[in-house]
């Protein structure tokens, strides 16, 4: 048979052959067990600060709008909407939906959620997501009218925050410690069944849910290496983030598939600007020259060192900003010029030993390893480091609420918009390090209102350079990031930030 004839005959068989690979209808039932490095401290969309909480929210709650598969705003609790000609208001009709306790989702719930997020006494960590909304009014039980501070071209693109049931709260002043945090009522595909003794959380499919999977179990597994083993041995079906060092192992397992996930993420060492020592510019600059970032990164695996608040693949990354290189002599010069003295250890201008308390997450193997290495590096240079390993609850209280730290070692993850306003604007809800620069504020404000992509790109590249020059943080690295799922899980499409947005379509 000639090649041509062979290909033709293969083509004739194509219809039959193709059918062999048409995916079957989704199976119903089963339990999806996934691992988080650390269990969420609370389940409460008003106070969500971590990705593990955000991922859980995605299973339990709905928003007015959410991303479709092509990442366009698609109605979720909203049924339809109409934008006023002046673009200063919109009317949203809700589709019929029920809370997990059986009560209907109403316009009052939408109004309540927005007002609770905006209530300064609530101090929601998500307040920035509704700052642009000036009013919310229930027109009737299934219609809500929103008004805006400025004309909005596509307000649905911002209505992604989770809606809460008004009937579960006494008013718009919501406390983080309310019982709701452990007994949440949502309207998502799964409801929370139990917090378990082993720090796992069990969710069950609701009666009206479109989800194919019956049960979802989140397991806290701090040890990344152990996570990989659990997946290989089929004690888990999903890992949300795999360390680069584990990729080769997992890709060589025929029953595991890797998915790119959450690549806009970077590690940092943040200085508390409201404290005398860590807020001292000389200390910040000196520490930056004392830290050998490559050496800290090596045990974790391959990654890109970053010079500012964006990852190198970002359109906002200024590639002309140089890395701060390890230079102990330069560090010593900076401290000396600022009045610090060296006598075996560095002493502050008031004669006290230069000591920095560095907080990081407890029960998080990789962060702890980095902190211990950091401690070694700085102590060698004469700065005393006192590591503090905080539980999730302690972290929320001390870092987010009380700002009780000298330095924090942590990671930020951003969705595809890479909006750093909340971290670096002096009004930012996530700016717990207390950084402020009026010029950076101005550029961040301007970038938010720009309608010209090139202008926004240019502005944020300037922001990158300005923040790098200020050194409010030692910017560390970004890692190639993947999720790993068992091949038993079918129809998987992972949302690049929230992960579970389309989990209702998955099956086992």
């Amino acid at each position: 048979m000639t090649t041509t004839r062979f290909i033709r005959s293969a083509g004739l068989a194509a219809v039959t052959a193709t059918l062999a690979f048409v995916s079957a209808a989704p199976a119903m039932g089963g339990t999806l067990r996934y691992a988080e490095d650390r269990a969420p401290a609370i389940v409460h969309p008003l106070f969500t600060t971590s990705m593990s909480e955000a991922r859980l929210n995605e299973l339990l709650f709905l928003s007015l709008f959410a991303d479709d598969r092509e990442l366009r705003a698609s109605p979720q609790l909203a049924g339809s909407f109409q934008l006023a000609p002046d673009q200063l208001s919109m009317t949203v009709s809700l589709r019929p939906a029920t809370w997990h306790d059986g009560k209907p989702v109403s316009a009052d719930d939408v109004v309540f959620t927005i007002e609770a997020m905006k209530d300064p006494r609530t101090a929601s960590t998500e307040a920035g997501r509704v700052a642009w909304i000036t009013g919310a009014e229930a027109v009737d039980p299934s219609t809500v009218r929103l008004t805006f501070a400025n004309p909005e071209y596509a307000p649905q693109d911002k209505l992604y925050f989770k809606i809460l049931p008004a009937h579960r709260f006494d008013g718009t002043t919501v406390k983080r410690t309310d019982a709701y945090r452990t007994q949440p009522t949502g309207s998502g595909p799964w409801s929370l069944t139990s917090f378990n003794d082993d720090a796992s959380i069990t969710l069950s499919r609701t009666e009206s849910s479109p989800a194919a999977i019956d049960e979802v179990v989140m397991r806290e597994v701090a040890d990344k290496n152990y996570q990989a083993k659990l997946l290989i041995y089929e004690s888990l079906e999903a890992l949300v983030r795999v360390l680069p060092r584990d990729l080769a192992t997992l890709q060589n397992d025929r029953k595991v598939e890797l998915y790119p996930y959450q690549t806009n993420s970077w590690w940092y060492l943040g200085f508390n600007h409201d404290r005398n020592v860590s807020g001292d510019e000389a200390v910040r600059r000196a520490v930056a020259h004392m830290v050998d970032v490559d050496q800290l990164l090596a045990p974790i695996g391959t990654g890109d060192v970053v010079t500012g608040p964006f990852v190198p693949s970002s359109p906002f990354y200024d590639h002309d900003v140089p890395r701060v290189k390890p230079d102990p002599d330069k560090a010593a010069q900076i401290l000396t010029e600022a009045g610090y003295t060296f006598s075996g250890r560095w002493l502050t201008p008031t004669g006290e030993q230069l000591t920095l308390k560095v907080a990081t997450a407890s029960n998080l193997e990789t962060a702890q390893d980095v902190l211990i290495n950091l401690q070694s590096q700085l102590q060698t240079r004469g700065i005393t480091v006192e590591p503090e390993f905080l539980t999730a609850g302690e972290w929320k209280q001390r870092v987010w609420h009380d700002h009780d730290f000298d330095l924090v070692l942590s990671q930020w993850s951003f969705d595809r918009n890479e909006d750093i306003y909340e971290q670096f604007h002096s009004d930012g809800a996530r700016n717990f390090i207390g950084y402020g620069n009026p010029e950076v504020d101005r550029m961040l404000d301007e970038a938010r209102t720009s309608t010209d992509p090139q202008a926004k790109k240019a502005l944020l590249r300037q922001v990158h350079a300005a923040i790098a020059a200020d050194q409010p943080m030692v910017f560390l690295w970004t890692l190639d990031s993947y999720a790993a799922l068992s091949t038993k899980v079918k129809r998987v499409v992972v949302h690049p930030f929230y992960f579970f947005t389309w989990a209702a379509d998955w099956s086992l």
Partner: protein
Amino acid sequence: MTRCPRRKSRTALVASSGPACQSFGTLTYPDIPHVPACQDEPLATTIIGSVFTPVTSSVSRTGPALGWLLCACTGPTPADTPPVEAPPPQVTVSLGWVEEVAHHPERFGELVEADRTGWTALHAHDYGVARANLSTPAHRARADLALATLHDDLAHLSAAATSRLFPAWEDRGGLPDDSSARAIATLAAWCAPQAHDRPAEAWARDIPGDRPGHVLTETLSSTRPLLELTGDGPYAKRMALHRRARSGDTEALEVAAALPLISEQAHGFTRHFYDPCAHASLAEGWWHVALRALEADADPLPDRRALEALGSSLPATLFSPWLSDTGRTEAGPLALFGADAPWPGSGVAALPAGDVEAAREAVRDLDERLDGARRALLADAPPEGAGVLSDLDLVLRWRQEWLVLQARKHLRDDDPTVALALLERAHDPSHPEVGPWNSPSLFVLRAEAEVRSGRTRQALDALRPVEGRLGSVRGVIEIVGDLAVLQGLDRRGDSKESQ
């Protein structure tokens, strides 16, 4: 001594070299069967070791991996055994040049020994170094063809991005009148008319008469191709570079593609526009370079002629997605590269459009078949051939090339979701850079699939590894970046701590 349980791809090959299992610790976790660990021996040294920069398995390059640690040493008991599926069916898969190398390692040795640096570079997808070090024109044409294909992939990506960027920008706030945006949109629509809903002439009509880009309007209204534009302006100078590139002198345009075509002062910043047509001309140029090397006639289809001239011997197929003769008399450029050949072993000629799960299943099926073929080859091949097969992991290399080719086919068939699924499976994430295990086209096609699936920001992640290998990609990165920024203008971004 006990062999490790079934592994796939590189690990399986390394295992075949004989990992010695000995206990050096006990892993005690409540959810995992109790197994002692094992360690691997150095890989067998083969003739390739003297020819190529040593290439070992990803496992050995990334340190002791879990696969080895889980290897049972004293023989697994039922309770200790990880879940094992039924053994894969015995299948017969013909692997063309892979088999030739395995069975006739002397042919491979003779070939690569003559141009060691060049073939090593081709293996590493380093086409510039390859063509500089392959002494035979016909061999050098392999690198030329690879460059032509890569630039063609970049041209498609550029078209996908510009066809979304300019209309959406117009809709969102209007293209800035005091800029060259419309002129650049005109160029973009001119060089990729099939990708743009709005023709170049329509964009050109809206260029203000006092803008430098107005020369494009005048040229297009005279029905002349833009390539004939002459003069001293930036567009005319650029078209001169395009003409040179299309005739095979690509160097100047490759340099220019990394730099803005137009830089102009806007309100408080400098606006930069990159050439959206650079890679289309570079692709055509490299086809001509290949044709010249092969002393082939360019008409009527340069890509077909080049491949026909290439032949089907080992130098023409080594490291390629086509295993032997690809049926190059079939119509269509992708068929020339073997894209219409059925999936090896299964007879599947086409995957259902848009069915991601089916695509993943097809790849799993392919992997099972390739496992069987690899085992058979290792059993039958002489030791030297088996060594080359293992050390260069040629089955895996062919798998990647095949999946990339199939993904390209799905993109050209307007099926980016299946293309993306195939590319995700083709990608070796343990090697983030372009190299033997990840071709630059893999990343570029992935970026195109991401753009066409609405995941423009992720496309930028895909392109980052390419820039280190091909500087001219900077212009495309900026174009895709503009689109990503535009698509996020009305959003209030979310961020969280990763812990």
